[in-house]
């Protein structure tokens, strides 16, 4: 009995943590994992790549073949087709309106049937703007049939039920909005010609009305198109170069400074609490704000020029942040990033230092090891795990520098990968290429993280 109770209790105890972490798992799956997968798919998946052509002008009819996006096609015929009301605001849709009319033909017979809106001049409307009556328009052009055909169904391929004279009065009994379908043919690079019907939303017809191109498709396909677009973008190489350059310059400076700061904090100075507070201020500083702060220093009428001129080093204010002086922009970005992001490394290093027992450090000091020797042979080796974490974190964050760069360079003269992602999305409205950039940043982040883990492990193995 008690054994059963115990297993029961143990089982209960085992399930509790899973219930407790469940909300966070659900949340992260919903707002992290799923969007991530969907978003990265954008970089390699074109969901408008292929257009299926139908044998007849209907979505239910069989597919006669597919043509890729961008193919030039011949337009052979057009026809209006029923469209659901909620599809009416679809982009690039071409509609035509047909009226069901009743009128009297030249022979005096009553004709009821469908006619395109373009053939009727509306004369009477209800208060809501629904047409109720009108007259048949005069046909223009020589040799045209002076009579207007009335069709049995709401498209001009159907049977003609009668003809009406120009200017004869009709009553409008029904109005229907139709989407235009085109009968098109064309061929994808060297393949056989495909012919079929397609909806107007997918086809852009040129002015001559006989040719057109496939604007977008309805079926997705894997593509490297966006990745190519990204790589061929003229800002790609500069952005990648600058991002890597900044990483290579900033990270060593940051780590040196962070270790110095951490040693100062650990030295048990009198106001060490105050020092810690001041050192930690940049930790929570907004990167945009920090960019602007350093802009106030480096701008032409800024503090750096004030100081330099005050000391008599320069005679007139120097323009630091301009196209001709790109290296100054890089220096300003470096200083701003070192100012902003060293604190976080410091905090990680201090946590690491606190874990090192003071006996070891005291022993090293007692045996006469100088500061440099202690650092080289005792502190740094023991700090390795902390430094590894800090290095991974900093590298990943360095790949995301964004607001600082924009604040200091305007985002044009010096650009970084994150800025290009933003521009592709925001300025060029190119979600897919932006997703490619995002994926690219992700891949570099992951590769560098793996590289650090690997490098440090092999070092340890070599030692063992």
């Amino acid at each position: 009995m008690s054994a059963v109770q115990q297993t029961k209790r143990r089982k209960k105890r085992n399930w509790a943590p899973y219930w407790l972490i469940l909300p966070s798992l659900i949340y992260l799956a919903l707002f992290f994992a799923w969007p991530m997968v969907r978003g990265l798919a954008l970089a390699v998946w074109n969901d408008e790549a292929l257009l299926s052509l139908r044998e007849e002008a209907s979505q239910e009819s069989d597919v006669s073949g597919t043509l890729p996006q961008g193919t030039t096609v011949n337009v052979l015929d057009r026809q209006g087709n029923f469209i659901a009301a909620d599809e009416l605001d679809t982009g690039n849709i071409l509609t035509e309106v047909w009226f069901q009319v009743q009128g009297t033909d030249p022979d005096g017979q009553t004709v009821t049937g469908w006619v395109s809106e373009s053939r009727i001049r509306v004369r009477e409307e209800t208060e809501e703007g629904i047409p109720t009556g009108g007259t048949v328009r005069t046909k223009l052009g020589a040799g045209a049939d002076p009579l207007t055909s009335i069709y049995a169904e709401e498209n001009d391929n159907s049977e003609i039920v009668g003809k009406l004279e120009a200017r004869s009065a009709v009553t409008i009994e029904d109005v229907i909005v139709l989407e235009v379908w085109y009968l098109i043919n064309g061929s994808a690079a060297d393949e056989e010609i495909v012919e079929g019907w397609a909806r107007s939303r997918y086809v852009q017809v040129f002015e001559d009305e006989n040719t057109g191109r496939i604007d977008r498709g309805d079926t997705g396909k894997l593509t490297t198109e966006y990745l190519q677009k990204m790589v061929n973008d003229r800002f790609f190489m500069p952005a990648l170069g600058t991002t890597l350059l900044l990483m290579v310059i900033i990270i060593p400076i940051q780590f040196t400074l962070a270790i110095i700061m951490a040693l100062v904090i650990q030295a048990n100075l009198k106001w060490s609490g105050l020092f810690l507070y001041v050192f930690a201020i940049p930790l929570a500083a907004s990167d945009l704000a920090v960019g602007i702060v350093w802009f106030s220093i480096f701008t032409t009428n800024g503090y750096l020029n004030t100081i330099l001129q005050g000391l008599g080093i320069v005679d007139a204010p120097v323009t630091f942040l301009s196209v001709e002086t790109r290296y100054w922009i890089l220096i300003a970005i470096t200083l701003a990033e070192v100012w902003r992001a060293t604190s976080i490394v410091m905090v990680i290093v201090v946590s690491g230092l606190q874990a090192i027992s003071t006996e070891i450090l005291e022993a090293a000091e007692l045996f006469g090891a100088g500061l440099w020797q202690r650092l080289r042979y005792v502190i740094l080796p023991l700090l390795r795990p902390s430094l590894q974490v800090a290095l991974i974190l900093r590298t990943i964050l360095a790949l995301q520098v964004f607001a600082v760069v924009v604040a200091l360079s305007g985002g044009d003269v010096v650009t970084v990968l994150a800025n290009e992602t933003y521009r592709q999305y925001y300025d060029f409205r190119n979600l897919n290429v932006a997703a490619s950039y995002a994926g690219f940043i992700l891949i570099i982040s992951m590769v560098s993280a793996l590289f650090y883990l690997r490098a440090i492990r092999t070092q340890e193995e070599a030692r063992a």
Partner: protein
Amino acid sequence: MSAMGESNHTTIQASEEVRAIHRQMLRRQRINRGFAYLVAFLIVLWILIPIWFISSMALTTQENVRAYPKGVLPFIEFSFDTMQFFLSSEGIVPGIINSITVAVIALVLSTLIAAPSGYAISRYLFRGRDTYRLAILMVRAFPIVVLAIPLVVVFINFKIFDSVLSLALMHTALTLPTTILIIGSVFASIPYELEEAAMVFGCTPLQAFRRVVFPLVLPGIAAAAIFTFVMSWNEVFAASVLTIQNRTLPAQVFNTLSQSSQAYQFAGAFFMLIPSMVFIFFIRRYLFNMWGQITK
């Protein structure tokens, strides 16, 4: 006798040598300490001078902002003119309201979801605990850039694009891992024995948690919440990508950066820095809690 005298002599000599070494070490230590103070002082200057500069620009008249050479407080006129100009610019007050709304929603959601998880990882040894912690860390390290673009698509599909709520949901996803780890370390610092003792004295587990553990962890959870608030308040990239009409303060400043005057920019930067300076003061004790966790 003589031998003894000799040995006595050597001891005296040795102790003198030892004293000399001691003196030398003391001197070296004093020099080292002096050096440490010097370095500390220099770093403090390095951090405070830019803040001093931007405060001088934000808390003076607009003529002083445009002036060259630039002055610093208290040698230039103190005035709220620049701040007033910034705060009365278009989109700033709504931006501040949006920023606070987003940050508060993110803070509440993130704390509510993270607290049980933090409790679970600090109190239970369960299968998959390490995997879970690793996954959380990976989410923490994921680039914001990578997450923002995909979320645009999702939010457009859900028709909550360009709303304060969508941004708050995104910021929650962003801050959740950090919050879980901080809260986990805060719970870990409260001995389980306290809870047990409370139960021995007749509390139910829930009561033990509410009466004993909860008051003890409250400051730590508040620190985590403040950190979430600051992270959300600072975040620019996702805010600019996910909102158009309902911009938060950083997004608003960022998007008008190229067309705005220096007075506006400097006052904006100063205003955005204030929370970080104030909040870090309150949570400085917990900083190592937050990051110590990760290295373990």
